[in-house]
């Protein structure tokens, strides 16, 4: 399939606060939508398609449309965890290319921190209607972090990867976070200890939360949100800023399977689909925005999207390629990522936001002449059921 330039990101906004008491998720969405449309030079009435996971307010796609005051001709509430916004961006680009909409608005907002949600360590809630998943998983005391810990443990066993190798992922994202004032403020407001660049030894010395995952391999829990405006070619070329084209996308799911290889994520399907769709290869990519819920998530995305061979990610992340001012591979999570900038629960939208900043030349860790970025979201739980979606973006 030849490269499509039929739809582009024309407006973005990242809600600046990671601790936002007294603000609702809905308000974060409306605030971000308003500012993203202003960024694009478009108005409220231009929006004809709404994309939102419908979570956090229990009002779904209908409710968010009414709340914002929009009458869309297209609503998509794909909700597959943290990767939802890559799924949605791909869908929006496809529908715009098909002429079904002209201006799509993607909104996300969450007050996970202010709600004191123990996402990583809370374990089973015992709430809601019983499901087969709950009934087979709740009694064992699994925490979200231990679910990912099981994947890292198997990766280390199967490929000989080491804690020290994994730590390079945290080191690179913190390096970028320290250059991003919003990330520094986030770590300050969330009372991080030692807000500074870190070494691999710092990661190894941080306490184990769920062996083999250390504290500094785990994302924060913050408030936050953002919005993305995607428009048709005709509109995009007349917006306030240069368009950032969505040139390809791929989606896939994976589940815990009898005899399955837990170290291979759904990215092994969705990555190649996205690259084929865009007509580019991993070697062409300048910026890799990979969902860093945990170090192991990034490791799987790097390998499964083909930035190195499966099982060789340990050597890859140790080879000095991840930082924005290093060469030999795409820069990783140049905003500071979920590890060091923000993670309100479903981080996928931020992968698109920073990709766009890079391709506009607006990042605080700007990759020189960045032309191609991949936003790869991973949602659900890597060690059981998860979704991985990749969106490939190109500068004008």
């Amino acid at each position, binding site marked *: 399939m030849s490269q499509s330039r039929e739809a582009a990101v024309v407006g973005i906004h990242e809600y600046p606060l990671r601790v936002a008491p007294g603000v609702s998720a809905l308000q974060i969405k409306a605030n971000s939508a308003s500012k993203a449309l202003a960024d694009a030079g478009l108005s409220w009435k231009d929006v004809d398609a709404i994309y939102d996971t419908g979570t956090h307010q229990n009002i779904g796609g209908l409710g968010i449309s009414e709340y914002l005051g929009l009458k869309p001709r297209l609503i998509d509430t794909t909700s597959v965890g943290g990767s939802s916004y890559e799924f949605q961006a791909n869908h929006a680009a496809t529908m715009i290319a098909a002429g079904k909409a002209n201006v799509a608005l993607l909104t996300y907002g969450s007050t996970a921190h202010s709600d004191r949600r123990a996402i990583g360590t809370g374990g089973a809630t015992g709430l809601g209607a019983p499901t*087969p998943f709950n009934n087979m998983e709740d*009694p*064992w005391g699994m925490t979200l972090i231990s679910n990912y810990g*099981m994947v890292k443990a198997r990766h280390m066993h199967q490929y000989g990867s080491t804690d020290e190798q994994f730590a390079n992922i945290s080191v690179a994202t913190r390096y970028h976070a320290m250059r991003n004032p919003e990330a520094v403020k986030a770590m300050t407001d969330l009372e991080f200890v030692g807000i500074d660049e870190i070494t691999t030894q710092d990661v190894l010395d941080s306490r184990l939360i769920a062996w083999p995952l250390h504290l500094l391999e785990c994302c924060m829990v913050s408030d936050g949100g953002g919005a993305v405006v995607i428009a048709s070619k005709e509109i995009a070329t007349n917006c306030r800023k240069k368009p950032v084209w969505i040139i390809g996308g791929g989606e896939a799911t994976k589940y815990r399977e009898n005899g399955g290889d837990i170290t291979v994520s759904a990215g092994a399907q969705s990555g190649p689909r996205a690259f084929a769709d865009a007509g580019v290869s991993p070697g062409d990519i300048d910026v890799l925005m990979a969902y860093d819920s945990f170090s192991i998530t990034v490791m799987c995305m790097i390998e499964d999207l083909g930035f190195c061979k499966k099982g060789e990610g340990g050597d890859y992340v140790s080879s000095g390629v991840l930082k924005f001012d290093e060469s030999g591979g795409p820069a990783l999570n140049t905003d500071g990522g979920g590890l060091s900038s923000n993670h309100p629960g479903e981080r996928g939208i931020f992968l698109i936001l920073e990709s766009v900043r890079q391709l506009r030349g607006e990042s605080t860790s700007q990759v020189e002449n960045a032309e191609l970025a991949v936003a790869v979201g991973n949602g659900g739980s890597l060690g059981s059921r998860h979704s991985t979606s990749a969106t490939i973006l190109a500068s004008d």
Partner: protein
Amino acid sequence: MTQETPLRPQPRFPEPDTQPFWDATKDRKLTYQTCDSCGEVIFYPRGHCNACGELETTWHTSSGEGTVYTYSVIMQSRHPAFKDLGPYALAYVDLDEGFRIMTNIVNVDDPITGVSCGMRVRLNWHDQGEGAIALPMFEPA
């Protein structure tokens, strides 16, 4: 046969897919299904075959012998039933009959060093009281 206080989160019913599995644990039976059409092993329990979609399945009882596929050791849980347990091992165990179960590995001194991927394990029922659902845990074989 002492109960933990507070109790671990329990499977909840009505939930028709998993109820037969948990009922069998009251008789200390670890059960799984196979598909009558394609023969695939089905687990977790379902009313259909997730490989081919056929609706007829047969229940079997496992020998309870298997291998640790992977594990994690939880050092920090905020859940009331687990927060004071000390480090405990969560694992996927591959039973010899071909199904993978989420479980705990018990009866090891240090769960980080005392458990390993590929280690042989056997069933160790975690009793929760007379007539109650029992939890299938595993220990070194």
